[in-house]
Structures are given as C-alpha cells and as structure tokens.
C-alpha cells in the first residue's frame, strides 16, 4: 500500500498535521463530569463519577483517593462487530490509561474515596486510547477534581519510511510503526509511551519530538474547550 504521495498522506494531510478535533465539555447530564471528543473518525465519550465511597471497601486507601479507569469499545465501533465486554486489549488499555492520568490527580484531598472514569469508544479510527485519555482529562476537570495539570495524548508512527503524526486506521493497520504518547505538556512529563512496530533510534527521537508538538496542540484545545464552556455560562 502506498501512503505518501507528493508529501501528502492518504487523507491529504501533511506528515506533521493532526486530524480535526472537537471537544464538548459536560456532554452528559447525570455524570459528575463528562466530555465528548471527535478526533478525526474517532468518537469517544468520557464520564467521571466521584470522588465517592469505595465499594468493595477493602480497595479503599486511608490517605488518598483511588482511581479506576474503564476503557470500553462499543460493539458497533469497528467494521466487524466486536464481541462486547472486556478483552485482553481493553484491559491493558484501561491499565495504561489509568497510569497516564493518575500522576496529575491530587489524590490526597479525598482520602477513602474513589474516582471512577469511564471511557466509551463509540466509533474507532486509530488512536482511540489517546482520544480516550484526552476526553478523560477534560472530564476530570469538568467534575472539579483537583489536578496538577491536564494530560494530553496523541499517536505518532511511521508509514513509507516517513515519521507521521496522528495515524488514521489504514496507516495504523498497514504502516510500519505506531507509538501513542501521553504527557503533561507544562512539566514535559511523559506518562504513557507505547510502541508497536519498528523505529530506528533516530526515527524514535524524531517521532517523540513530533508527538510532543502534537500533544501541545491538543493541550491548547483542551484548555480552550474548558474556558469556552464556562465563559459561556458566566455570560448567561
């Protein structure tokens, strides 16, 4: 498969260009905090509940809140119907996503409680874990959970020997490498870094730099979405 033509990708983007992204803060009425994200062909909704009492009780920590994260793909989110329920892949993504978000939450404010994050993938088009993390981060801010910063995430990869930002499904499936990154852009702390495929050391460094630039653009969008939502409410 040919991915690069005249320096443009299969969906006419430049190698360092993100797909169009839309954030909608507070999309759900009954969740304590929520966010709906459209990231290219990805449609993701994140809901936050808590801090609230922990059940089962033995999971609670005396000095801090615990974080629980559930990443779930809808059966209709992919081309071939996905068997519903947790599988090996979604359990792993839940774990790494929780660990990506966890370092910025100020957990000591709410001892003996839990903060539950639910991420539902309604439509998938590569980079769903990144879209999920971006949505979860904004949903946490919407719930009023104290945080040291917002976590932003995007994927980088390699197709036709070129390092590209924010892969689409074809590039992810038939490309040479895929590398999701999540980070706190202000501190520069990288909280998630995975890689599938092969990159040389030079390519890896180039990809990491490109990923950081991508995360920075997304951080600005998350910020803008939060400010826009509450600025609107202030004027009403």
């Amino acid at each position, binding site marked *: 498969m040919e991915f690069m033509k005249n320096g443009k990708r299969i969906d006419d983007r430049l190698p360092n260009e993100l797909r169009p992204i839309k954030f909608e803060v*507070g999309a759900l009425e*009954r969740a*304590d*905090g929520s966010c709906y994200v459209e990231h290219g062909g990805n449609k993701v909704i994140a809901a936050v*509940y*808590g*801090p*609230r*009492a922990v059940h089962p009780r033995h999971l609670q920590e005396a000095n801090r809140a615990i974080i629980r994260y559930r990443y779930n793909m809808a059966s209709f989110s992919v081309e071939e119907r996905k068997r519903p329920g947790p599988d090996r892949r979604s359990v792993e993504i839940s774990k790494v996503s929780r660990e990506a978000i966890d370092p*910025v939450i*100020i957990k000591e404010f*709410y*001892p*003996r*409680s839990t903060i539950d994050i639910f991420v539902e993938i309604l439509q998938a088009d590569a980079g769903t874990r990144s879209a999920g993390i971006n949505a979860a981060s904004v949903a946490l*801010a*919407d*719930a*009023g*959970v*104290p*945080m*040291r*910063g*917002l976590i932003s995430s995007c994927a980088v990869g390699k197709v036709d020997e070129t390092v590209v930002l924010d892969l689409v499904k074809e590039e992810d499936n038939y490309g040479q490498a895929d590398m999701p990154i999540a980070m*706190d852009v*202000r501190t520069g702390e990288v909280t998630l870094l995975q890689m599938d495929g092969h990159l040389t050391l030079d390519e890896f460094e180039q990809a990491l730099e490109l990923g950081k630039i991508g995360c920075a653009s997304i951080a600005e969008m*998350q*910020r803008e979405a*939060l*400010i826009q939502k*509450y*600025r609107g*409410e*202030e*004027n009403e």
Partner: protein
Amino acid sequence: MTDIVVPGDLIGASEEYLAGEGTYEERGKIFSAITGTVETNKKDRTVRVLPVMKTPPVLKTGDIVVGRVVDLKNAVVLVDIARIKGQENREIANADQGAIHISNVKDSYVAKLDTEFDQQDIIKAKVIDEKSLRLSTVEKDLGVIKALCSRCRTPLVRKQNKLECPSCERIETRKISDDYGKGII
C-alpha cells in the same frame, strides 16, 4: 469578565502569595488545581481559585443531610449519610457513617431510642461536628421523613404526632420531621 484558569495554569509565586483553596505549590510557584477564576486577598496575601463548575460535595458543620438508620445502640443511632441538601445529584466525597447521640434527638427528654427511630428509617439531620460526624435532629423540620411499618413493611402514614400503618393499623412513635412523607428534603 474575569479570566478563567484551568488546572496547571501558573497563577503566582510563593514569595507573592500563600497558596489557598483550588491551588497547589510546586518549586516556589503557585498553580491552579481546578477550573475557575483567580481571587487574590490583599489583606492576608492569599490567592485562591473560585471554581466555575460544581465541585465534589464535602460534609461540613451546619449541612442538612439525609440518610438511613442502620443501627440503634444504647445511646446512639448510626446513620449512613447519603446526600447533602442542595447537592442531591452528587455523591458525597467523604461519605461515612454519622451518629446521633440520645441527647441530640429532640428538645425533650428521651428515655429510650427505639421510641424515636427504627432500622431503615430515612431521616433528615444536621451535621453538628464535621470531624466525628455527629448529627442532630433537634429542630422541627429534622427527624424521620420516611418509615416502614415494623410488622408488615408498609410505608407509615402520619396521624398528628404518631405514625399509623394503613394496612395493619399498627401505631408507631418517631421523632417525626415536619416534612414527613412529603418527599422533600
């Protein structure tokens, strides 16, 4: 219109201000921990972020709460606190069991607690100590707001200052709230 900050935004230096609510300090700098508007207090030199969204409810002295009676001891009633009045749509962040001492049930003398409460009663109470979660039902609008008949589990109906079971005609006594059976908090 004031500027809105989001978590992680720099709002000052430690030399300038004391970090107040909604902020945190890191390496001599103060950052916002929540989404809100910055407020500085020139008098005590604190800076805090006033939230623009609803923050997690936390029990404070003076809050009116609703809960369910889970245990009756000799001198205390244990209550599972469910919600705070005014924030009924959200679970309490530091939810726990509260206790009503026999001396905080009502103004007059209480000889035995089982004439005032029963297991599973839904009650409305006021927090009189946020640390030990002691509650009081002394005021007129506080007390039992829903109770079931101890013989047949039918919801009891208020008859003056007593409660009557509409199906088995049993009469029970409670520390009844003015809002008994109205479904309002």
